[in-house]
């Protein structure tokens, strides 16, 4: 296997892992949302994310099987890999916390995903480009929904404002990882950072929130060095396939 095909596989898996793990976390809200409409909203977003991860995994499986003569499938990638094999951003695997933390994470992630996919759209790789174009339409809705919630809570009551401040303090240290390129990524990833910050600042201004400064940034997810939380996410998500290997609907 040459370096570039290896990198493409890793990159495609990274994109799929972020969507899958955040989708899995959001799905924990199913039947626990604050009101019915918002329960439906967060699970709709989950469905979009899981759909995106399937598209990435299907393509990754095709790439793996072409170079390695293996039997990779979207399911084997989701259900049969170990913690260290997952490349998702740390922010995706963190516990949901309260509603403020959940919507703020979605806003940070979707805003990043949109900028990344706008670039991916022009990729010479037509599979990645097609998935990006398809996903952006969904992401636009995710940004709007989560951005409105950040404003609503940030500029809401004293209680909701304080919860939003805690959410910012809990999550900010995980946002640096978006822009630090792993060896399977383009180094110009860093160019997205200021665009992302501008978009976040726009919403934070309306939400009467302040962007933290000089925060030490956590990294590691992209290379498989995860927080202790990922193991618990995977053990729940993979339990059926681990217990009954090959089980199908």
């Amino acid at each position, binding site marked *: 296997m040459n370096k570039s095909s290896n990198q493409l596989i890793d990159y495609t898996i990274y994109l799929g892992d972020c969507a899958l793990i955040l989708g899995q976390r959001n799905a924990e809200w199913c039947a626990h949302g604050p009101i019915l*409409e918002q329960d439906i909203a967060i699970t709709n977003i989950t469905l979009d994310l899981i*759909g995106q991860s399937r598209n990435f995994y299907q393509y990754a499986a095709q790439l793996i099987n072409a170079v390695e003569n293996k039997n990779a499938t979207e399911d084997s990638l989701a259900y049969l890999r170990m913690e260290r094999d997952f490349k998702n951003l740390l922010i995706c695997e963190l516990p949901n916390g309260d509603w403020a933390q959940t919507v703020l994470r979605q806003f940070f992630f979707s805003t990043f995903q949109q900028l990344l996919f706008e670039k991916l759209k022009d990729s010479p790789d037509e599979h990645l480009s097609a998935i990006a174009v398809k996903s952006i339409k969904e992401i636009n*809705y995710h940004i709007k929904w989560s951005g409105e919630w950040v404003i609503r809570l940030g500029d809401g009551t004293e209680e909701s404002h304080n919860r939003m401040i805690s959410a910012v303090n809990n999550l900010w240290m995980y946002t640096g990882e978006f822009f630090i390129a792993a060896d399977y990524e383009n180094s110009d990833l860093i160019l997205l950072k200021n665009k992302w910050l501008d978009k976040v600042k726009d*919403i934070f201004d309306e939400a009467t929130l302040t962007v933290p400064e000089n925060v030490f940034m956590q990294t590691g997810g992209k290379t498989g060095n995860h927080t202790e939380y990922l193991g618990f996410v995977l053990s729940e998500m993979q339990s059926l396939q681990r217990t009954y290997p090959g089980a199908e609907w």
Partner: protein
Amino acid sequence: MNNNKEHIYSLLEQVCDPEIPVLTILDLGIVRDVICADDQEIEIIITPTYSGCPAMDAIAFDIKLKMLENGFNKVKITYTLNPAWTTDWMTESGKSKLKSYGIAPPQNVSSRINKIMFNEEQNIECPLCHSIHTKLLSEFGSTACKSLYQCNDCKEPFDYFKCH
């Protein structure tokens, strides 16, 4: 062979969306092409509405079944993402069927998602009393493709097939 293709399209016209059964898959615009390699083998190319649309597998199954019932044994279903599906591909007859079913049909290209926070799509017509004094309750509805509105006049909540 052309006749064959027409025949296949007429069969696809009978396959309905499992979640909105008044719409056929042709109304929805998810059938992108039909390729008849020879009399025996047909390839049907479909595209998902949303990345995570859970109806895709059911639709593929229903297509195969419909073909099998009509003597086509070799059917291959291919999924494509490019170009990405848009509500602009929904047929006019599909839109009017949606409306009489009680779902407001999607507006056209110019009115697609308004990215400004708290701005909503305007003038969505209530499928019950036809008032355009309606308001958005939630951008996300009972399926991925719908949002939830309410009529300010007759007060009924209703689904809107959102622009995509």
